[in-house]
């Protein structure tokens, strides 16, 4: 199962790598031919994408390494580092390009061969949405947040290339209209600003979630509910549960809590209860490790005080 998951992740990173190489080549050629700032922003994003794909390839291999003496909880967090890195670099690009675009709005530059820009955008859109579809499929199968982040990146890049493509159509329409021709040179820097703004919002969200996960965020609400189901199902087999703690590390989830059991029961019975809870939680939540610690009751309930039998003994 683990090997299969690793396979899905490696497949996704390889697809991402090859698509990014293709995108960088196409956009570089288009930039030289068209001299467009919007393509430059788009190329910047793909260049970051390519760098992240290479890092992601090695991160996936590292994240799948089993826990060892140096990293007792495994290497899952490297996936969040990868996400955070991608988000921070994309925000940096967006800010830098916004300033350049603002200066170009004040002194617009000439655009050559806009139809090449349009056709290159069309190819980029196809590569991005096709890549995003496949990467999301692999992310679902592997449950990897880093691969999902890569899918988000691809989809976003697809929207950005669509906007760039539309901007070239507008440029050609404006240029051929006597009334709108003076506005045509402003379309390219305006598009670059729009793309930068679009880039910032999901990148900020990605940065936020990855930083939270690096700070040991709890598991999401659905998984919290799944933890409570076995605790409810076997409620009459333990006295209390406490100190429930959960944390996410890459696609792996760690859950631990304590159950109080009657002190009269044999150790083996207590162990059976703890194991049963662990097993059922692990079955319900994929990729999780559960540790249930047991402790004896303090004999402080009303039944014991009144010399009645313990309600949990049978």
């Amino acid at each position, binding site marked *: 199962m683990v090997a299969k998951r690793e396979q899905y992740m490696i497949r996704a990173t390889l697809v991402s790598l090859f698509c990014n190489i293709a995108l960088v080549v196409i956009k570089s050629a288009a930039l030289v031919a068209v001299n467009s700032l919007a393509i430059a922003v788009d190329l910047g994003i793909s260049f970051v994408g390519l760098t992240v794909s290479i890092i992601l390839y090695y991160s996936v291999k590292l994240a799948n390494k089993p826990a060892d003496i140096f990293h007792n909880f495994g290497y899952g967090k490297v996936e969040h580092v990868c996400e955070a890195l991608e988000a921070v670099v994309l925000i940096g690009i967006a800010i830098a390009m916004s300033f350049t675009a603002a200066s170009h709005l004040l002194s617009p530059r000439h655009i050559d061969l806009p139809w090449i820009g349009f056709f290159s955008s069309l190819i980029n859109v196809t590569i991005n949405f096709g890549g995003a579809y496949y990467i999301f499929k692999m992310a679902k199968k592997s449950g990897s947040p880093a691969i999902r982040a890569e899918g988000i990146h691809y989809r976003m890049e697809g929207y950005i290339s669509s906007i760039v493509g539309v901007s070239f159509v507008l440029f050609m329409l404006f240029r051929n209209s006597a009334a709108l021709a003076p506005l045509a040179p402003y379309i390219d820097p305006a598009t670059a600003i729009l793309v930068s703004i679009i880039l910032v919002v999901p990148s900020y969200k990605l940065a936020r979630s990855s930083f939270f996960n690096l700070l040991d965020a709890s598991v999401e609400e659905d998984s919290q509910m799944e933890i409570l189901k076995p605790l409810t199902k076997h409620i009459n087999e333990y006295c*209390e549960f406490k100190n429930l703690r959960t944390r996410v590390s890459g696609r792996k989830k760690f859950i631990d809590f304590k159950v109080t059991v009657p002190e009269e029961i044999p150790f083996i019975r207590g162990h059976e209860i703890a194991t049963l809870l662990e097993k059922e939680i692990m079955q319900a939540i994929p990729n999780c490790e559960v540790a249930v610690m047991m402790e004896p009751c303090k004999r402080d309930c009303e*039944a014991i005080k009144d010399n009645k039998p313990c309600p949990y003994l049978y």
Partner: protein
Amino acid sequence: MHKQPRPGSHIAFSEKTKGTTCLLELEGKIDDMSSEDVEEKMEQLLSGEFKKIVLDLSRVEYISSAGIRVLIIAYKKSIKSEKKVLIEQMSGRVRAILETVGILPLFSAK
């Protein structure tokens, strides 16, 4: 005495007493922000003189896992102190969530 709800908490309590039974009506959301208020309230009632605590959740819009955790803890404390906690009424959404987790039979009078 129950303290003021925490900032950001979306829960309000109203209490009615009948002999050794306390009817506690909750209104709002039992989520991460308000679950500690509910836990405190239940703790206060379970350590008091009441033999039975009846919860009315008909005006509770939502209950999160944190809220369910509080209910499980309250159930366990009621067993420990030989008291009873019941849920008499609840909104459709809350019922669906409690049924999904399987907690509802623990709080039924039957």
